[in-house]
């Protein structure tokens, strides 16, 4: 278990050992992928608690489905399971009308009593920890676009891998990233985070 990640990390070997029921081998994979997976779930669900659950569920589901893994990219396969877990959670939230899609846990329930309570200190701290304005902008994207931009820009997957994770074509990946970035840009501009380059440019020119 104390194997350090990196040079010794032989993914294919660990996967095949895990397939044979070697839980310790599988847990080395868990150790390797838990941070990106948790962060992916966190961006998708906007709640550390829900992200924890989804991550754990994803690893358990992956272990149980390991014998159905047919080669290819293990990371993409694993991410896809986590993404499914996230979509399940989002669906559950939608089924419970009282909980809006993307409101963080801490805010739930109170919004009914007070129309606009404003963020608490704790929530502001949490938002800052998650990345401030850009975090808010990403959170406001529809799930498909958010997933595309998170996989691409936050997780650094290439288009083909993203297509694999999302189960869509390359063209769809491109257009989702396109639309996501365009919306992000708009909200960053609106929040004043991004100073329009034409103004920067023109003021610099003159």
């Amino acid at each position, binding site marked *: 278990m104390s194997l350090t990640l990196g040079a010794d990390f032989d993914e294919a070997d660990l996967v095949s050992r895990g397939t044979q029921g070697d839980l310790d081998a599988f847990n080395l994979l868990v150790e390797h992928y838990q941070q990106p997976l948790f962060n992916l779930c966190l961006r998708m669900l906007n709640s550390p608690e829900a992200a924890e659950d989804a991550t754990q569920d994803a*690893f*358990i589901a992956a272990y149980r489905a390991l014998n159905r893994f047919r080669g290819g990219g293990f990371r993409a396969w694993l991410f896809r*399971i986590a993404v499914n877990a996230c979509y399940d959670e989002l669906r559950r939230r939608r089924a419970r009308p009282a909980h809006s899609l993307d409101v963080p846990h801490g805010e739930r329930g109170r919004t009914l009593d007070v129309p606009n309570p404003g963020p608490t200190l704790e929530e502001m701290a949490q938002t800052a920890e998650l990345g401030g304005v850009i975090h808010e902008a990403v959170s406001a994207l529809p799930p498909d676009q958010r997933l595309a931009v998170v996989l691409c820009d936050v997780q650094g997957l290439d288009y083909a891998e993203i297509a694999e994770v999302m189960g869509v074509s390359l063209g769809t990946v491109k257009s989702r990233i396109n639309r996501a970035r365009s919306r992000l840009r708009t909200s960053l501009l609106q929040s004043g985070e*991004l100073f329009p380059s034409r103004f920067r440019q023109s003021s610099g020119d003159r």
Partner: protein
Amino acid sequence: MLWLSKHARHRNNLSPYVDGRLAPVDTAALEAHLGACQPCRYELEDLRATVAAARELPQLETPRSFAVTPQMLERRRAIDLAPSASPLALGMRIASAALAVVLAVVVIGDFSEGGNGIGDGGVGLESASESRDTTELAAGAGSEQASDEPDAAAPAPTGIGEQYDARATDEDAPSTPAMPTQSASAACPAVGDQMAAGAGASAATPAPNATRQLAPSATANSNLNSGGAGAAGPATGICDEKSIAGNEDSTSATPAAAEAPTVAITDDDAPDAAALSARDDDGISTLRVIEIVLAGSLIVLLVGVAADLSLRRRRSI
């Protein structure tokens, strides 16, 4: 117009360009365009700034280790079995379990009446009255479409029950009697789900069981197939409750258990007078009709439950 569409196409290429994912030909074309088009250059700058901001999103440390433990695998099994389905799916499951029980009771009535229910009257009476009582319950829960012969009822639940894994409920099996028949061995391991519980119950309860004490479903089954007929009314009620309650232990909180006691109580409390009149009306043909309706509804419900299960199984990879 031509310029506009070309312009739009170039704009769409900006994002892959930033990622270095644009084909060389397109890259050359885009760069040529950028040299001539200032709005597009601004657009590119904004885009680059946006992507840079997104890339700066912090990666948080994991709050704990997500290593999978054997306990989690066990717990997960329990969660999978628990009724986390949608209200509709849940309703279908409860309804099919309840229907299966009701059908079983009706079939008993039919059997004991058609196959000379050893004159002690109570057999046919109680079953008949129960069928009346509980048909209302079933009608509330399920859709009604009669389609099959009454005989098809018994094979159908058993067959579907077999599709489900025999999970966790092997505890039921040890009580299998010395003379296990085909249907007994098929039905008992299949008791794993509430639906399968219903199936198991329906296969099991037609057996009029002489011993009132916690009759295991397998025993009941073999009695049925050997054509045994006893004084059965109250005993079957207990048999139902037992087989489902036992199931509940292993799957944790099946709503079927909530239904079962109701049925059992109806069974026990059935007033003799009402029961008597029920039989006197026109015994067998009424029962047949009820059986057909029940069996049809049960089949429809089971198909619905099976569809829901396969749907969810596929979604969870």
